[in-house]
């Protein structure tokens, strides 16, 4: 439809950046950005230009906590039908994954979206159906709008939705890495617009660009960041204007606010991040699996679950190491036999690194 693969322009951007002789560290928070960067060799290209770009906590599957996985496993083993996205099913818990208990006969089903899960609930009125609702702002409106339409009473969600801006703040406050710029995720921004990122520029002095997912989008996004750095500016710019509006998708924001309210949650690899999660408002508590099946939860309520042994997903997600630095990468840990979620999810940085390295 829209051709955005202009080689000449791409080369021009690269050669311009090269002449500037920079040494910069950028971060993005999106699996799809990482895919474009690695698939087209842009990560290597940028390195040659003096720019190191890493993926932060930008994969909704990867940042779910070990405990959330155990919660879902527990539901399945209590005889409920559990439903979620394909990637989620393979994420290893302490002993099992949803995938592995499925082969043992528990009812675990992959869905393409929450509407599929609702259909399963309609068709199985005699059973409880739980949907593991993961995803950032891009995905949350889907969960919210379905809950507003009186889903069947045997349906509920295990809420694992998270929001991006507080996680960025957490990374900056932890101070483990010094960032010169952030590439903001195009599809999260489609929903939230540019405003929620502004404090990062004004309070932390960090340049930001909202970027799309074609190679040229990322080249341009990086160019815009470099320009801000060169000119001593820090603000939120929008490279992806063909999709992202300044105000975002207001309808979607309203739907989210009607159904959810902010709460403090843990992210894998992070301590609790203030107001970075979403919980169902009281009005919707019948659909809140954690409340509804409180008794089921009792056995794990106060238990802490640790990350898989040797897995360094936490550091990968905080942007302080690259996947290849993990000693298990490509050895004990591969997509066929993943140790941590970053190798499972097609948006996980270990998985992306492995897939494209193999192809070359």
């Amino acid at each position, binding site marked *: *439809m*829209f051709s*955005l693969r*202009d080689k000449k*322009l791409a080369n*021009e*951007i690269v050669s*311009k950046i090269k002449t500037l002789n920079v040494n910069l560290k950028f971060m993005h928070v999106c*699996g*799809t950005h990482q895919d474009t960067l690695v698939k087209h060799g842009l990560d290597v290209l940028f390195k040659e230009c003096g720019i190191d770009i890493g993926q932060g906590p930008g994969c*909704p*599957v990867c940042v779910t906590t070990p405990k959330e996985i155990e919660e879902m496993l527990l539901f399945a083993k209590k005889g409920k039908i559990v439903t979620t*996205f*394909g*990637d*989620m099913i393979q994420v290893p818990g302490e002993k099992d994954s949803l995938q592995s208990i499925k082969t043992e006969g528990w009812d675990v089903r992959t869905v*393409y*979206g*929450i*509407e*599929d899960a609702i259909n399963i609930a309609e068709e199985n009125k005699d059973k409880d159906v739980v949907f593991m609702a*993961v*995803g*950032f702002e*891009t*995905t949350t*409106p*889907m969960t919210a*709008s379905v809950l507003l339409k009186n889903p069947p009473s045997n349906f509920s969600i295990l809420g694992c939705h998270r929001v991006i801006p507080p996680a960025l703040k957490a990374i900056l406050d932890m101070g483990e890495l010094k960032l010169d710029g952030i590439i903001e995720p195009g*599809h999260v921004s*489609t*929903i939230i617009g540019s405003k929620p990122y502004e404090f990062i520029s004004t309070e932390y002095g960090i340049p930001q660009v909202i970027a799309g997912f074609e190679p*040229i989008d990322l080249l*341009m996004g990086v*160019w*815009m960041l470099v*320009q801000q750095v060169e000119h001593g500016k820090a603000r939120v710019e929008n490279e992806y*204007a*063909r*999709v*992202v*509006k300044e105000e975002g*998708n207001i*309808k*979607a924001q309203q*739907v989210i606010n009607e159904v959810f309210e902010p709460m403090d949650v843990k992210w894998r690899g992070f301590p609790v991040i203030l107001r970075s999660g979403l919980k169902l408002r009281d009005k919707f508590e019948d659909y809140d699996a954690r409340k509804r099946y409180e008794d089921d939860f009792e056995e794990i309520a106060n238990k802490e679950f640790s990350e898989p042994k040797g897995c360094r997903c936490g550091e990968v997600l905080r942007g302080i190491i690259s996947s290849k630095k993990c000693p298990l990468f490509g050895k004990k840990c591969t997509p066929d036999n993943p140790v941590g979620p970053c190798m499972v*999810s*097609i*948006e996980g940085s270990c998985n992306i690194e492995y897939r494209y390295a193999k192809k070359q």
Partner: protein
Amino acid sequence: MCLAIPGKIVSIDEKKEHAIIDYGDGTKRNANVSLVDVKVGDYVLVHAGFAIQVLDEKEANETLDLFREMLSYEEEA
């Protein structure tokens, strides 16, 4: 899990809740359009079965021109 892909609206149901989207590669699928204001012929971005935004065709067509402009602008600056 959460890619978003562009497609064109072929038809919209009476309740204006769902639409048939043509992804241009021979696949046509149903998507929920309740989060966007759309009409037949619009291009939308679809994520997990929901249209999340209408693509601005004018902006899209001008994207490359705009990029070129930004590059040469910096040269003069």
